[in-house]
């Protein structure tokens, strides 16, 4: 058995599965670092997956290979618009952020399929897209045995996801914007007293969050599923929240956690291919990623410290 090949395939699949989670958990990071709980990542991903699929569908005949890019960008825009009500509710109206997020999840699930049915003549999913992102091999590097296939032969969105991790790290920890963002999430009153506009900051963060989560959603419909249905996202937004917490609200940590979930997913099919199902019931293999997560959380990570003001609406008038 060629273990190198197996490992190479595993890494390759892991990256595919992790991409959406990386985007979405980074999205969660912006919002939560600013103090706004974002349980609506799921809904934002759904909107992204939907918009990405529909816009690509609309342009695939006229634009060909560029259509998925249009879909991808449109998804980002749609996501940040969709996030707006969450910002309005939780920042301006000081609503319970969890409740508002739950509302958005419901809205996304309903609205996306409602619109799909209207656009696609009653069908519960979009037609299969003829053009989606294709894997892109980095010239030269992808020739490296094993490693090439594992890392340098991926969807363009996967590369973008890793770039987004770096950019987020830089923005959040190196720039004035990041310092302000974090101050607003840790101690909004302190930020306010030095003249930072807490509300504006949080609006911005929530909208960035919507954009990134939606990009994550779009990577699913534009790479792995090639269509959009009620099941396209199916809980990955929640897994992204888990990744964010797991990664202690740090971009690299969130990425690590997302890769961990990706590995667990990828292992699922590998285990079956090697016939381990004769010894272990399939159901246990399906459980694996989730059980592993719980064990790792309980065993290694333990208490994680959220931004201090997370979930607390900021009220200028209160003390």
């Amino acid at each position, binding site marked *: 058995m060629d273990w190198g090949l197996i490992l190479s395939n595993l890494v390759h699949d892991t990256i595919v599965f992790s991409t959406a989670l990386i985007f979405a958990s980074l999205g969660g990071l912006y919002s939560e670092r600013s103090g706004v709980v974002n349980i609506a990542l799921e809904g934002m991903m759904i909107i992204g997956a939907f918009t990405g699929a529909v816009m690509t569908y609309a342009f695939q005949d006229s634009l060909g290979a560029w259509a998925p890019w249009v879909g991808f960008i449109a998804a980002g825009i749609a996501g940040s618009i969709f996030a707006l*009500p969450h910002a*309005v*509710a939780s920042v*301006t*109206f*000081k*609503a*319970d952020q*969890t*409740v*508002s997020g*739950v*509302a*958005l*999840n*419901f*809205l996304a*699930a*309903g*609205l996306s*399929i*409602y*619109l799909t*049915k*209207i656009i696609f003549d*009653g069908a519960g999913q979009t037609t299969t897209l003829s053009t989606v992102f294709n894997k892109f091999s980095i010239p030269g590097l992808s020739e490296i045995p094993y490693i090439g296939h594992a890392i340098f032969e991926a969807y363009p969105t996967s590369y973008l996801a890793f770039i987004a991790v770096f950019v987020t790290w830089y923005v959040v920890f190196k720039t004035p914007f990041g310092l302000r963002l974090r101050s607003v999430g840790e101690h909004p009153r302190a930020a306010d007293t030095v003249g930072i506009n807490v509300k504006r900051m949080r609006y911005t963060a929530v909208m960035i969050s919507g954009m990134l989560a939606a990009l994550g959603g779009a990577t699913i419909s534009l790479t792995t599923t090639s269509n959009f249905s009620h*099941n396209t996202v199916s*809980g990955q937004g*929640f*897994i992204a*929240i*888990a990744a964010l*917490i*797991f990664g202690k609200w740090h971009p690299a940590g969130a990425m690590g956690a997302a890769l961990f979930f990706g590995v667990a997913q990828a292992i699922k099919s590998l285990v079956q291919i090697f016939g381990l199902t004769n010894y272990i*019931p399939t*159901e*246990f293999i*399906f*459980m694996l*990623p*989730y*059980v592993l*997560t*719980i064990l790792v*959380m*309980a*065993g290694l*990570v*333990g*208490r*994680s410290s959220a931004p201090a003001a997370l979930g607390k609406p900021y009220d200028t008038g209160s003390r």
Partner: protein
Amino acid sequence: MNRVIAVFTKESFLVPAVAIILGLLTGAIAMLAGGFNPVDAYMALIKKVFGSAYNFGETIRQITPLIFTGLAVAFAFRTGLFNIGAEGQFIVGMIASTVVGVSFDLPAIIHAPLAILAGAVAGGLWGAIAGYLKAARGVNEVITSIMLNWVALYLANWVMNAFFIPAGKQTSEEVKDSAIITIGWLAEMFDNARLHWGTLIAVLAAIFFYILLWKTKSGFELRSVGLNPHASEYAGMNVNRNIVKAMFFGGMFAGIGGATEILGVFHYQAIMTQHTGYGFDGIAVALIGGNTPFGVILAAILFGVLTFGASGMQFSAGVPFELIRVVIASVIFFVAAHGIVKIFVKPILKKKKEGGN
């Protein structure tokens, strides 16, 4: 006591009421945008639910599990925990009641209660896992309960496949008649709608919720720990034990829900390819219901009526039933951002005042 009174005070009644109206209006706008006639659609929805005894009975059937999962989420909320795992707890409740219902031969007076109890305990323990991990290891209960939802789903399939599903079938054997909690005479009155004792148990569960939390020593501790764990620790309460306990009770409600669904509706358990959705809907129910037991019942009724009626809307008016999710989402949204609702309520209140003069 005054908390309960507060539930009925004007604003807390008006806000959800207006939120519901705004939600329905939002739905109407979405329908108009989609080229549908909202009046026809809503009429169809109402007609579906209230048009026949059968459908009315089925609506009640639909409402029942939502009360349970709503209570499961609300109870945890009251104790400072977010129980996103009602879905998994519901499922293990189903497993346990199926196991007891199929495996034993007992007089009905023992069998059915035992099967429900099994569901309650299983759901409770499932919830308690998340509670324990939070208490002992500080793991965020949101993550664990999300994960446990999936684990429960596959666990259910494994248990059924390995022990309860006859070869070539996809559903378990039927539970014994003695474990079935269908109410025959009532079902007959409602044209064979699947009515069962679970509905009554749900109402009793809500009362239990209220008494436990606001009338007992345990409830005092649970609320105290939920609101301020540091002060509770200082006051000599065992914070960790209370976290586990809170998740146990939360899970218990969901577990009973799962059990009554098996014993009252299906009478067997099928292989599941997806979650039941009751657990997630329970979050919405709890939130719309303001995390109070009475509010949960009202919200479950609203939720049940809308979702059951939605298929009538689709059938007769051609409106995709997902629209109703948009309506529900808007209701939750307006309940959350009651500041927005107050903008609408203010003129009403003002007018009332003027009218009174």
